[in-house]
């Protein structure tokens, strides 16, 4: 996993089990080590019971999870069509602190470890936080240095075969789709979809439209450097990039109607008084993660079918 501080990497992972149980993706999830199981329980409890976000990662957390294809669900003619792909997906996930992405941490031993993890990985979940990019605009500066270091690390492994690009597949996740500004931008672009099978009528954005949203969001980057980020990722991983518009907590579903209401979509309650954006946020209602499983399934499929 790769992303700036606060981009939602850990929350994304915490929502994975909920996403698998909320929607019929055809997979079950299991922790493969005691630590991974404990982390899974702890993070799910934080989201659902405490209705808070998991604390920020300090250095790098590792998760050993596996997804198993559920044959019974796959046979359900009324369920979501099963995506093609492997029956068993091993997730050896490294969740680094976003702080490690800062340019000033480039000589940090943990950063070196992160570069090695990324260089050795088959796929990368890249988290792009549009709200942070709007307010701070450091996505390019935090990504560019890592890309250079990752490129050097990959090149060093076999300098003769290195062609200037990186071999990993990258699922670029535009996080925080539930934020009103992101939803409003998607609505303005006319790329909001509703599934006829979804009784809650929750909005989502198809992978084909995700790049349009990301492009629109990078145009309003706080630093003006957002556009370079996309080019840098395309150049580094040519033809191996897919975009997803995601939300770990999803939108608010009115418990009275059981439906999403576009006039009242926020599932986060900001707890700071006045109009300050600082302070903790609480989760307001039930969690309906959006596009949390899909990037992982896409990555596993790409990895399974690579030459």
């Amino acid at each position: 996993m790769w992303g700036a501080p606060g981009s939602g990497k850990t929350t994304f992972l915490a929502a994975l089990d909920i996403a698998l149980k909320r929607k019929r993706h055809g997979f079950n999830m299991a922790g493969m080590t005691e630590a991974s199981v404990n982390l899974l329980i702890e993070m799910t409890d934080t989201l659902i019971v405490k209705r808070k976000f998991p604390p920020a990662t300090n250095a790098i957390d590792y998760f050993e999870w596996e997804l198993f294809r559920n044959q019974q669900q796959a046979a359900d003619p009324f369920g979501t069509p099963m995506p093609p792909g492997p029956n068993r997906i091993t997730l050896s996930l490294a969740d680094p602190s976003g702080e490690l992405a800062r340019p000033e941490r480039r000589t940090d031993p943990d950063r070196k470890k992160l570069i090695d993890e990324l260089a050795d990985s088959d796929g990368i979940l890249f988290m792009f936080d549009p709200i942070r990019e709007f307010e701070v605009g450091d996505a390019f500066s935090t990504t560019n240095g890592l890309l250079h270091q990752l490129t050097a690390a990959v090149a060093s492994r076999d300098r003769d075969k290195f062609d200037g690009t990186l071999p990993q597949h990258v699922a670029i996740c535009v996080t925080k789709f539930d934020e009103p500004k992101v939803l409003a931008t998607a609505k303005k672009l006319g790329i909001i979809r509703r599934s006829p099978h979804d009784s809650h009528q929750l909005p989502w954005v198809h992978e084909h439209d995700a790049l349009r949203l990301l492009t629109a969001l990078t145009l309003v980057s706080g630093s003006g450097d957002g556009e370079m980020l996309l080019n840098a990722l395309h150049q580094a991983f040519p033809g191996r990039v897919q975009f997803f518009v995601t939300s770990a907590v999803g939108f608010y579903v009115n418990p009275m109607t059981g439906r999403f209401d576009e006039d009242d979509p926020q599932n986060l309650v900001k707890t700071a008084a006045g109009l300050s954006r600082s302070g903790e946020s609480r989760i307001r209602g039930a969690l309906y993660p959006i596009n949390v499983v899909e990037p992982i399934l896409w990555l596993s499929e790409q990895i399974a079918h690579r030459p």
Partner: protein
Amino acid sequence: MRGDELALEALSAELAQLANGASFTAAEFTVHGVTLWTVARDDKGTPERPRYMEFADVPETDPAALADFYAKRLAPRLGRRLVLVARSRADYPAHLLALLLDKRHVPVYECQTPLKDHIRGAITVSPLRVGYELVVLRREEDGHLAPDLRQLFPQDAYSGYSTDLTVQCAPTDDRGTVFAVMIREHAAGATPASPRLRPIEIQSAKVPPGEYAVSAQLIRPGHVVFHGLPVQLVRESRTWREIMQTVPKRLPAPRPAHLVCMLEVSGPEHLEHRIERLEELIGEAEASGLQLKVSLVTYGPHSVERAVPEEPATVVAWATRSDLAVRKLGELKGRVPAENEYPRAAQVECALRLVAGRFTGRDPGRDGKPVLVTAGTRPPHPDRVDIHTEIIPCRDRVSWQKMFSSLCETFPDLKFGALCNAGAVGNVWSSLGRDAIEEVEVVDVSAFAAKLGLRDPVRAVPFPLI
């Protein structure tokens, strides 16, 4: 019958027969000597505070000295009417008593209780010779004020007698409202329509304007206590003539006004200040003589989470008396907010809807010229998602802008005032404070009231109105 009871009975009988302006004397023999008590009625028939004179240096045994003491010191002070002698101790100066009884034939009572207490007891139970009346002002239809009297106690009333009456206290200046207890005197020149009045007791205090159910109680002849007023009356220092000179000739009909208070009850931090300022505002409007009706609408934040109960905006009181509204305000002090109460907004929009609903279909001026004062800080919940503030929308999708515009269009005379904290944000407050906006911590309530037409020049009325 014990000597004490006989002495009290004798004193009461003497007092009942005592003419106005007359007095009698009673002697008390104690171990310390002799005390002479003088009991008198003033020229209005009220028993006066008893006076006394002590003689401690009574000669013990020398007959010549004793006779000299009696003739030169005691006899001149016995007055024309010595009614009794009380012996309160066994070792009284017996020789002197014998000398006294030789000259004056009066009964002697053996008493355990000091004579002072018997005299006070006799005065206390002494019935009124003339009925007591309270000076009031009657407002004629044309606005003229005419002095009038309301009977408090009839002739022959005893102490403890009480009378209930309802009085209206009009706004006054610092000299307050005067409660003057009078008697009518049928003197030369007096007529039933224009009796000669003589004051018994004049008390005053700055009584907040309003209607009061008062109970007047006769404590003793000459002293009346008025229960049911919010302040304690004290003895008035002005002369009757000075007081009467302050009575205005006319009192215009009070102008009706309807003050609608919308109070944000969120969070405990500023609530008490808001309540106190609204209480002051109501007091200012009352003090200026308006015929005031007050409404109170409370509002806090919507519940935006599953576990937090919804507390809707509420009409706590509508077009009620100001004292009742103030009482309701007081009951809101110390409100404890719900755990996890939403901190970023409050239901201004729903409170406005309640007010508009109460006015709709009625003449909003029916209860007086309407004034809407909002005391709060937080912005309203928007009617739909607001990407700038990100405040969770109103669950009923009420728009404060629409409610405000509707009120302005429907009731052009409606005045808007806002009492907010320094942190108040959003253009909602400039709208709600269209005619007057002040910070709740530093507001000059008097000036704020004046801007909203809630304050007229005070015309002091010195007596209760009927």
